[in-house]
């Protein structure tokens, strides 16, 4: 086992352990903070896969955006409903059965599938990604921007003040 393998194991452990805490912690805020480590671990795995741009994007979007959104959501709602939001377990037995079957199937298939592996590509990926976005994947790129715009307008519409009431326009 060389040094890179050790680093891989460390990152993988971070991801798995923190993901367990996310799922099993009773306090939703603890889950949210634990998610931080999951995201970072995944970013680390991306780095090991030579996906430098993807790794940084992962940190920027998940830690800088989504995690903070989740934290905001939790912090702004807990006191409104005056009960502390806790995650609990319901219907443990059926859930366990389904989880066991599903994960067994997936694990089995992962194990027996012959994966197409490509040789590791050294060097920076940013430029190639940018070029692809402007050529082969131009259409999805533009459509994605429309999708984001729709989500933005939709969120603003849902959150707007009711017109004709206090604070409305």
């Amino acid at each position, binding site marked *: 086992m060389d040094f890179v393998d050790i680093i891989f194991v460390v990152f993988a452990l971070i991801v798995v352990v923190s993901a367990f805490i996310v799922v099993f912690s009773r306090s939703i805020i603890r889950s949210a903070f634990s998610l931080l480590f999951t995201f970072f671990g995944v970013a680390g795995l991306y780095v090991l896969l030579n996906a430098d741009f993807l790794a940084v994007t992962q940190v920027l979007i998940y830690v800088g955006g989504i995690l903070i959104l989740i934290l905001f959501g939790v912090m702004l709602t807990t006191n409104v409903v005056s009960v502390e939001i806790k995650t609990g377990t319901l219907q443990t037995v059926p859930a366990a059965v389904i989880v066991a079957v599903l994960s067994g199937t997936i694990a089995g298939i992962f194990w027996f599938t012959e994966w197409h592996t490509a040789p590791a590509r050294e060097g920076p990926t940013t430029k190639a990604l940018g070029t692809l976005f402007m050529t082969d994947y131009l259409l999805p790129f533009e*459509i*994605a921007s429309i999708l984001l715009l*729709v989500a933005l307008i*939709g969120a603003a519409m849902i959150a707007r003040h009711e017109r004709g009431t206090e604070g409305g326009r």
Partner: protein
Amino acid sequence: MSVTGSDLLGILAVGIVSVTALIAMLAGVFLKNSARLVMWLGLAGMAGAFAAAWGTYPSAGTAFGGMILAGGYASFFGMLILCAGILTFLLASDYLRKEGVEYPEFYVMVLFAVSGMMLMSAAADLIIVFLGLEIMSVSLYVLAGFMRRREKSIEASLKYFLLGAFATGFLLYGIALIYGTMGTTDLAGIALRFASAPPPSLFWVGAGLLLGGFAFKVGAVPFHMWVPDVYEGSPTPVSGIMSTGGKAAAFAAFLLVFVKSLGGGGAKVQTLLAIFAALSMVTGAVIAIAQKNLKRMLAYSSIAHAGYMLTGLAAANQLGESGVLYYLVAYTFMNIGTFGVISLIEQAEEKRLEFSDYAGLGLRQPFLGIVMSIFLFSLAGIPPLAGFFGKYYVFAAAVDAHMTWLAIVGVLASVVSVYYYLRVVVFMYFHEGPEGAEVISVPLLGSVALLLSAAGVVGIGVFPSSILSLTGWFF
């Protein structure tokens, strides 16, 4: 690769709709009381897009390096979805005013939803399927909750969003697994790989997840749970476009992925689709009997109709495929028409949605009575209306594909469905209305929409070959 004129021509129709949506959005921001203006702008844009789709129809091919279909199939679905969008606009304007929520954002979101549906139905790559689906779904989540003062509307939006996000997760995971095993997201490329070597079992897991995602979007059993609450709670014109344009787009992509790209996916997928179809037909038809609320009844009926259409897909022969396309056209006109009549009769605060509210309507208001009867007869599948031929084609296809049992289930289900469709007609003509019931004034735009839909239902019913000749050469 650089963008050429033919690329742009290929996405002309959906491009016009998207640009119209952007302009409409800006108009809504910068002009005061611009709802009417935005509506006319959107109608003009959709009419232009319809013309563009019609113009590019003969030249079938792909654009943007095989990312998206152009002409032919894409134009056909483009025109269908644009019809749904135009009818929704015509019906929505008076409905929104009646409910006191006539804001330009409604039209902007419908335009975005329409462009998402068009993209999805033209997809030649799984990435475009996903993006189109998401544009459509996000717009519809918002539209479902457009009437924020109504608890049911909020409930509809929230349920649709939570379950829809879950279904999207299914779909995306399926796409990821397919990409992992096939090495491409291009549908033509997947078809090539699929034909050359049997795919690994992981591929089937991915395909199954994809199937689940699509089944959710078309509202087929066992992924139908959201349909009744969402159709009931959403503003009525939104239920209309959700059940027609949304369903058409989802079926278009369904067909592209499962029939065209995976070559029917072999017997496995066919059997699975047949089971979904049978369950949907039976569940929808049986539960619809018990409904008192008309929108809810139509929601269950739409589950049943998803089952009929799935029958055509399960048959996976040429008749079945063009039958599904025909069915989608017929269903679009008749269902939007029905929701249109409901939206006219409905009063603020969700009043007048029960069967009993239709008592005596046919005599009191002959126009509404007649068009509503046409739509309901068509939904029930009574010749010579469009609904009959739709069912006829898909059942005949099932028989051709040696799935006679499925055709029998379908015919039984439609016999059951006659009961609840005709019950409305019975209420309209054979029950006495309450004393001094007010006569609803039918607005001009609304009656234009109803007339157009009724003409569509009768027209393609009498001349079914008009649609079949349009779609015949796709397969």
